[in-house]
């Protein structure tokens, strides 16, 4: 059986290199037959694509999409630099 670290690395590489995602800095963890995606992306559709690409790269695993869509709040306080 393939070591879980290699599976996670393969999924991470797919997320970075696949034309549909190109997302770096996503945390991928494999525990048994479960795969967890964690981190932040900029849109809902993008979030779903990430799950799709991860699932294709590890078809035998159950994917948990724990990615969050970045919330853009109103600009806050000014910072005064002096």
């Amino acid at each position, binding site marked *: 059986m393939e070591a879980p670290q290699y599976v996670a690395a393969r999924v991470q590489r797919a997320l970075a290199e696949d034309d549909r995602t190109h997302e770096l800095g996503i945390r991928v963890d494999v525990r048994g037959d479960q795969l967890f995606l964690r981190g932040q992306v*900029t849109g809902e559709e993008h979030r779903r694509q990430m799950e799709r690409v991860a699932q294709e790269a590890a078809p035998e695993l159950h994917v948990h999409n724990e990615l969050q869509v970045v919330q853009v*709040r109103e600009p806050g306080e*000014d910072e005064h*630099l*002096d």
Partner: protein
Amino acid sequence: MSILTELRIAAVGDVHLGDDVQGKYRARLTGIEDRADVLLLAGDLTRHGTIAEGRLVGQEFRDLPVPVVAVLGNHDYHSDLQYEIMSELRDNGIIVLDDESAVITCRGARLGVVGGKGFGGGFAGKCASEFGEREIKNFVHHTRGIADSWQRALKELDTDYKVVLSHYSPVKETLEGEPLEIYPFLGSYLLAEAVDTVGADLILHGHAHKGAEKGMTPGGIRVRNVALPVLGRAYGIYCLSESDSC
């Protein structure tokens, strides 16, 4: 004309725009002219660096009531269409810096912005050097070339304020939260060293989505990581006050 005593800089990076968020970011820019004098974009404006995304970015940031200055990030280079994306942005009235400077006049004060994408290599004591295989030499040489051109551009500027706009980070502090193992791919101390040599009021960067907002160069220049996931708000606002005002 009122003379500025304070220059208000709005900045954000890593907006990574795609079809699914079109128009959403723009909505957050309403009223920016009441809050800031200029908007700086710190790269990774697209996801895949395609022309279509470049056009989307152009539309999202065009015709704003404040001048917009941008640099690109590594994502914007991915499809080898960085120059096409730059012209797309310029066609929409955005000033794009590719290792060069621009001077903007804001209500009587002159702001010089120097910058470009920047690059990696790591931080003093734990970094790559121009030694060994050609591939490693090229990597470090690329960063060194960028740092040199920023230093030159800064030296030539004679403005009231000087700000450096980068995608990659010049310091480690604003990377805190990122895995240590990838620091060399997130920035280079050569960028900070170049700016410290000449001096500037502020350095802005993005790229490190999990990093921290605030840091400082060894020379004491304030550094702000304005990556959207770090800020969690539409943009940060940094006010510079004239040190030698009478």
